[in-house]
């Protein structure tokens, strides 16, 4: 078997010159006529984004994979020369990119992961359906089509306890059953790839690294609920994910994994891409469906739920990217081995190593942030971990032993959310963080309902006043009162969630607020 050099081509490494690096290296190998010895291929995210650009060398089946980071992409020409030389001299196993750093794959960052959703991400060339197929893509779809027992699949999803990864954590099996039971023969499946939470890039990683798993999951879902058409709604800010999805959809059509009579069965399934226009609220399912229809993306009250009346009024199943990507693994492993499953997180902020990780459900925050992420920088301590984005909250450092699961995080006043995890050290003022998210919601409010449209502005102004040292007596009380009002009365999840970062920081870091209220007015 020939050696393989995997170059991370996901957005983060790409922004540090990975694309040119990959191009230069593969050109050099090609022009030296050494393609039979070494394949240079682009892959999805290799994990520790903070150490990018990243390269992984599989010199031979016996040799251990070597991961290198901080590759000086500007020196691509020199690297290409040394790589060609190593390939010519059969010394690829010893090759080490000058200026780069070897990353220990035995580090807990890698060892404590359990990769189900990301199993092939970073391994396969995301533009190659052949590689995906060789890694097992579409095998579960094939099995499901052969067995042709949709009810059994739904039951298995129900019994697995899989919950939606898009934020709300709704039980996936229950949603599927509702769509399956909805009357009508024309049903739709929608994949929510709008991923708008600041600090969240899990879905992008999955789409860029292994689009076929998502397509397979969607097809399995479509078969289970009786749908024959699907949409992927992906934000325009993800051009690479969009390009890879286009390639993947075309390839899957070409190989008969999408389209008519899939795998010789009577199941037909087509997927269309819809590109969002940059509104955060379009990740909310009812707004997203409006947007797919070509209308202004504004939420509407539920009921009716999408399962009854979704896109074009048809029964619609809508799930998140990661939810769909769980299905092939779930069906392959079976309930027992799948266990409680995993959660993908994008770990960012004040940690030494940031990037995309997938950990067993229930892993403690401490394990993720300190053991895997390496904790805060020297001389700093962790103050809080933010989860759940603009609808989430902050977990204080003294609660880091909390396991990440839906209930435990909820009990602390935050949510699992979609998987953004932002670590903050002791230099952080929590009121600043609260204001950041409030300003975000103010900007992203669709403006339909009064409490969110006007309430977020008042809240943002109040926080700005506090931070500007212009607080008056009673401002803190007014802040808290208005937070509850906006949370309880807004029409959709954006407004209902907008006050949560404030309420959560008021709960755990009240001192940060009190410090901003003049002494004589603070109580």
């Amino acid at each position: 078997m020939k050696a393989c050099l995997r170059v991370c081509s996901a957005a983060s490494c790409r922004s540090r010159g990975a694309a040119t690096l990959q191009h230069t290296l593969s050109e050099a190998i090609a022009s030296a006529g050494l393609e039979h010895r070494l394949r240079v291929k682009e892959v999805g995210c290799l994990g520790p984004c903070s150490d990018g650009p990243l390269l992984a060398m599989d010199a031979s089946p016996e040799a251990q994979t070597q991961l290198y980071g901080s590759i000086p992409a500007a020196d691509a020409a020199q690297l290409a020369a040394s790589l060609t030389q190593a390939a010519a001299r059969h010394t690829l196993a010893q090759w080490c990119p000058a200026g780069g750093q070897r990353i220990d794959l035995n580090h807990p960052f890698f060892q404590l992961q359990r990769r189900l959703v990301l199993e092939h991400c970073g391994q396969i060339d995301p533009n190659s359906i052949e590689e995906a197929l060789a890694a097992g893509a579409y095998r579960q779809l094939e099995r499901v089509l052969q067995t042709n027992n949709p009810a059994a699949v739904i039951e298995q999803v129900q019994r697995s306890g899989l919950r939606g990864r898009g934020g709300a954590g709704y039980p996936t099996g229950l949603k599927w059953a509702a769509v399956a039971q909805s009357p009508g023969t024309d049903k739709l499946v929608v994949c929510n790839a709008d991923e708008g939470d600041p600090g969240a890039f899990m879905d992008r990683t999955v789409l860029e690294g292994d689009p076929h798993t998502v397509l397979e999951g969607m097809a399995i879902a479509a078969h289970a609920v009786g749908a024959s058409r699907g949409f992927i709604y992906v934000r325009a800010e993800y051009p690479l994910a969009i390009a890879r999805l286009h390639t993947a959809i075309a390839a899957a059509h070409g190989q008969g994994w999408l389209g008519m009579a899939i795998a010789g069965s009577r199941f037909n399934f087509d997927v269309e891409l819809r590109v969002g226009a940059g509104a955060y609220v379009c990740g909310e399912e009812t707004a997203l469906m409006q947007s797919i229809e070509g209308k202004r993306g504004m939420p509407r009250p539920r009921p009716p739920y999408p399962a009854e009346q979704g896109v074009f009024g048809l029964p619609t199943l809508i799930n998140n990217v990661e939810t769909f990507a769980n299905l092939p693994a779930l069906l392959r492993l079976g309930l027992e081995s799948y266990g409680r499953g995993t959660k993908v997180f994008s770990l960012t902020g004040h940690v030494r190593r940031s990037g995309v990780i997938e950990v067993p459900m229930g892993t403690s925050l401490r394990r993720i942030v300190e053991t895997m992420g390496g904790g805060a920088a020297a001389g700093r301590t962790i103050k809080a971990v933010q989860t759940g984005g603009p609808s989430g909250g902050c977990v204080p450092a003294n609660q880091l032993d909390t396991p990440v699961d839906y209930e435990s995080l909820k009990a602390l006043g935050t949510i699992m959310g979609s998987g953004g995890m932002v670590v903050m050290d002791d230099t952080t003022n929590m009121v600043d963080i609260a204001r950041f998210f409030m300003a975000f919601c103010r900007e992203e409010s669709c403006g339909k309902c009064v409490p969110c449209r006007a309430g977020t502005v008042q809240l943002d102004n109040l926080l700005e006043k506090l931070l500007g040292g212009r607080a008056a007596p009673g401002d803190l009380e007014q802040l808290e009162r208005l937070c509850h009002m906006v949370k309880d009365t807004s029409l959709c999840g954006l407004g209902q969630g907008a006050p949560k970062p404030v309420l959560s920081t008021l709960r755990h870091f009240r001192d940060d607020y009190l410090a901003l209220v003049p002494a004589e007015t603070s109580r």
Partner: protein
Amino acid sequence: MSLCSLRIDDHEVAIAAGSTVLQAAREASVAIPTLCFLEGLSAVAACRMCLVEVSGSDTLLPACITRVQEGMQVHTATPRLQDIRRTLIELLFTEGNHVCAICVANGHCELQNLAVEVGMDHSRLPYRFPDRPVDLSHPLFGLDHNRCVLCTRCVRVCDEVEGAHVWDVGWRGEHCRIIAGLEEPWGAVEACTHCGKCVEVCPTGALFHRGDTTEEKHSDPARLQALMQARQQQRWNP
């Protein structure tokens, strides 16, 4: 037709299944304040004035779209709801520039009436004094954005009843504005039939007849209901 019986505050009500809580409340003469809702138009549940509490549920529900359920116990005027309604009105007043004394709708304004109803004698939130334009390009009517509460009644009546779809909502969040055509001066939008329905349903002085001065605008949403009824029954001579 199956009936649903429920309790709204102290009243027992029986009403056709599928009715909304708001319909049931009106049937029982319980007043629930509304703003965006208007009989004859689709309900959008945007203003949140009609939120009510239902025993056994933590979530507040908008009466204008929530369907009645057998045995439901609805509370329409708890202290919590009263405070919410007052805050909503404060949010609306501080969001625009509502100078009642010089407004065409003074004395006949739904926003003003609601403010009285919820006991808003002053706003606990600071006024924002936004910079908003006035559109006087139409020969018959005017639109003063300062007084608009974005209830979208005009958008809906023009689309759903007149079928002209002159109005829409442009921008988002605090920048939302009612726009004519593709954000053109109203007078330049050829789709406008000059029917005046939007002026008639506008709850405030935002849409008005050009000749109107202070206190002279009388909206008449009842005409919409009469029209809808006539269309439905195909009876045009009352």
